[in-house]
């Protein structure tokens, strides 16, 4: 059993230093070096060409769109964009790498020397320095078939090359120092901020659960911020924000225990285990691992023109952090409300709802209330809950015009969610409009008052206490279609 030091204890005596490598799969139509579709979920080994299968004679050609996306990412991370850069071969034998080398960038990345300002939970801004962002191709996928489902003890293994050659950008930070006890939060917030940037840039769907974004987290401890860097471990393929936070936390506690016991941390890769938030030893990194990098002779150097880079820069969308600040101001939300909206993934739908004419508070109320609950019940994203922002805005317009009250509005929403049509169609079909013609309403009120003469008398004598009883009865009789405010007014009129 691995000994651990309590986290707070560990960070009180050690200074954690992070290094994070994030791989993002680009959402290009075709692969990095050939015209096989870069699609997800196809039958195994169907999205392949001689190039992505590494057949003899096949040659790579760089996907220009992938280069553009890599430059977008580099610019969004405040990087320099290389005037000329090269691809290199990283040589190693593994069945999921069809050529037995990965075409990557080594000493000449397309983007380098940048930074990202990351907003922490309390609104504090933490700057993460970026060392480089480079392009490479993904590997295929191995499936080990046998009792264990793992490589050890497998009867045989299957390889699917659909993923082989999908374009990746790898973003490498410089050592992240100064995070102190907030290191796990910084790690999580950084990867989360990157994810949002990828989406905003339109370079990737950036779905963590599909492995579109994968993080390798390096952690080391040192005795104080002035001490030299300690030996690091690299926890590979941590694929959710929560896991990233937990992996860092665990490694800090584990390494502190190793150091406390007089031992030294082994430089190694580690695996993260979701079920109990622990890491375990992978392979020891040693000098024996030699990838024999050399410049890829099948590809000419890449020289993105300054004009092109300027054009890409000019076309960059507003970045998520800037946009959030702007929207929060425009909408008048509190910091906390805004964070909830973002965490619920409701920013886009609320923005669209406001754009369709609804007020920001009302839009938030719908999406964070009724619709958030429905989405959760149905296990879908808010955007796929079954009602569009335009429909929510139309529904709110009915409320604003006094044509339905809150209670009826929820019924209208139910109808829309049930696929009965637009809010207007549901109102008509279900006959849900607030009764605004006083005639029929007065008949109901008169009948109600006649049924309850003693209560009517109390109200007439100025005791408004039992007013609710009358209104309730009227609402019941009209199946909620009456406007309660109007009922009150009419009762007062009737009873002088």
């Amino acid at each position, binding site marked *: 059993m691995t000994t651990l030091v309590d986290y707070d204890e560990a960070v009180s005596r050690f200074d954690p230093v992070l290094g994070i490598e994030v791989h993002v799969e680009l959402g290009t139509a075709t692969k990095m070096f050939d015209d096989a579709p870069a699609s997800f979920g196809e039958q195994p080994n169907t999205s392949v060409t*001689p190039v992505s*299968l*590494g*057949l*003899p*004679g*096949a*040659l*790579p*050609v*760089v996907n220009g769109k992938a280069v553009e996306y890599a430059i977008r990412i580099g610019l969004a991370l405040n990087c320099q964009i290389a005037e000329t850069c090269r691809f290199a*071969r990283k*040589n190693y*034998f*593994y*069945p999921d790498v*069809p*050529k*037995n*080398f990965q075409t990557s960038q080594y000493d000449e990345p397309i983007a380098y020397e940048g930074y990202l300002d990351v907003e922490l939970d309390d609104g504090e801004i933490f700057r993460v320095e970026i060392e480089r962002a480079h392009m490479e191709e993904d590997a295929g996928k191995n499936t080990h078939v046998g009792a264990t489902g793992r490589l050890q003890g497998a009867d045989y*293994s299957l*390889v699917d090359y659909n993923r082989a050659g999908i374009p990746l950008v790898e973003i490498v930070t410089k050592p992240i120092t100064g995070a102190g006890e907030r290191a796990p939060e910084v790690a999580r917030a950084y990867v989360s901020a990157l994810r949002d940037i990828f989406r905003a840039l339109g370079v990737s769907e950036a779905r963590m659960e599909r492995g579109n974004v994968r993080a390798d987290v390096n952690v080391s401890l040192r005795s104080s911020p002035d001490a030299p860097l300690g030996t690091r471990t690299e926890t590979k393929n941590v694929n959710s924000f929560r896991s990233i936070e937990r992996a860092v936390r665990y490694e800090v506690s584990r390494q502190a225990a190793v150091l406390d016991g007089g031992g030294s941390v082994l430089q190694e890769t580690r695996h993260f285990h979701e079920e109990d938030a622990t890491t375990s030893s992978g392979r020891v990194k040693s*000098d024996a691992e*030699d990838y*024999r*990098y*050399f410049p890829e*002779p*099948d*590809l*000419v150097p890449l020289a993105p023109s300054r004009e092109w880079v300027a054009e890409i820069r000019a076309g960059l969308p507003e970045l998520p952090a800037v946009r959030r600040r702007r929207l929060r101001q425009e909408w008048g939300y509190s910091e906390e409300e805004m964070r909830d909206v973002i965490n619920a993934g409701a920013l886009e739908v609320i923005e669209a709802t406001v754009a369709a004419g609804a007020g920001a508070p009302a839009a938030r109320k719908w999406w964070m209330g009724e619709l958030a609950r429905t989405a959760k019940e149905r296990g879908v994203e808010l955007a796929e809950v079954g009602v569009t922002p335009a429909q929510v805005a139309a529904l709110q317009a009915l409320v604003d015009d006094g044509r339905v009250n809150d209670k009826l509005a929820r019924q209208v929403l139910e109808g829309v969610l049930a696929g009965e049509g637009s809010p207007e169609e549901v109102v008509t079909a279900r006959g849900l409009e607030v009764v605004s013609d006083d005639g029929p309403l007065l008949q109901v009120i008169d009948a109600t008052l006649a049924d309850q003469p003693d209560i009517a008398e109390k109200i007439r004598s100025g005791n408004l206490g039992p007013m609710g009883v009358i209104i309730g009865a009227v609402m019941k009789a009209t199946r909620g279609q009456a406007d309660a405010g109007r009922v009150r007014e009419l009762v007062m009129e009737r009873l002088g």
Partner: protein
Amino acid sequence: MADSTDLPRLTAADLAAKLTAGEVSSVEATQAHLDRIAAVDSRIHSFLHVNTEEALAAAADVDTRRAAGEELAPLAGVPIAVKDVVVTKGQPTTAGSKILQGWIPPYDATLVERLRAAGMPILGKTNMDEFAMGSSTEHSAYGPTRNPWDTDRIPGGSGGGSAAAVAAYEAPLAIGTDTGGSIRQPAAVTGTVGVKPTYGGVSRYGLIALASSLDQAGPCSRTVLDSALLHDVIGGHDPRDSTSLPEVPPSYTEAARKGADGDLAGVRVGVVTQLGGQGYQAGVSAAFAASLEELRAAGAEIVEVSCPSFDAALAAYYLILPSEASSNLAKFDGMRFGLRVEPADGPVTAERVMAATRGAGFGPEVKRRIILGTYALSAGYYDAYYGSAQKVRTLIQRDFAAAFEQADVLVSPTAPSTAFPFGEKVDDPLAMYLNDVATIPANLAGVPGLSLPNGLSDGLPAGFQILAPARADERLYRVGAALEARLDQANGGPLLARAPEIEVKA
């Protein structure tokens, strides 16, 4: 109609003329070559695979289209042989290696697509040193090709099969590939013509890579004009090869026709000091000197140029080539295609299957170069080996640039010696590597080179090499055709006509 046994003796240009004139059909021409192959190839072994059915079908298709009055490419109906390092859809492609035995490529190389589009029936796939590593075809996993001039001697390599096929009249044309001389040196020792185009001039898509930065496909033929005609078919930009030159090449056929008038007035010909003299066979040097006289007589100005870095070319080449090859050949692992060997005992893991497959599938020369290259690229050695070699390469490019200031073309003997007997150098890699000493600089610099037969030394053909600046391949054809015309006139016909008859099976 011509006697069908004479058809294989025709040059590609003459055969094309007869096809166009309707004097002969492509089926007849193709069949005549298939008959010739059947008659002599058991002796020569130029072919690893003969493509009878498909070739005849392609020929019949061309004949039909011609009969229908369709406008056809100049070489339509002229059959061709293709080196087995070039992938051909539906036809075996082994690169001379056991590791690809039985592999049928699912796609065509770009140059093969262009041959098919031009209506050229593909007779079959020619023998070669395994993965184009060698200068004699003795490293073919399927046995050597024999030199039609003397079947006890090597036909050169790696493209000995393509050169011998052309020399033995089994094909009027062939495709070769040249990484350090594999088109030019076999041409020299078989008395044929071979051209290595400018790097990027012919698409490498579908060439099984030896050394990506050096490999270049090109024509093999019996005349300079025939090479030009074939070069015009296979050259030009290919978007599937990132290193392919973007510009539209000029007509090499035109350049060759222009050169055939034998007039080289005003052309400056540079003799490279470093590519001759010591280490070159006396007969080879004598033939070279005689050819210089012919060029001078044609009006060319002969100048001496010095390229001092060429002395380091062979050493640099044998670092760059194995380095790139060690990576290019990594894909042959038994996982996806070709040979798969399971270890004799112990667990059958992917790593052990890869090791067993490569151990059984690669021959000794391939293993030697993979080990060399793996070593040269290793951490701690990279700068000293691969890095230094790339610097030498830059120096060689500078030497070429300086030399081409003084001369329009450079010339040298193609190879230091004529064809040597089998077995003489196969166990001495360094002696074998020296065959390419004059051809390698062109590959390192990416410049084009042509070899044409220029005389006999002890009854065996010698080769004359012409080098031009990158993207100026047309100079090779003009100067080559001019020299060829004068030599033919002086000799009373092509050199190859003096080759002994091959014993033909009755």
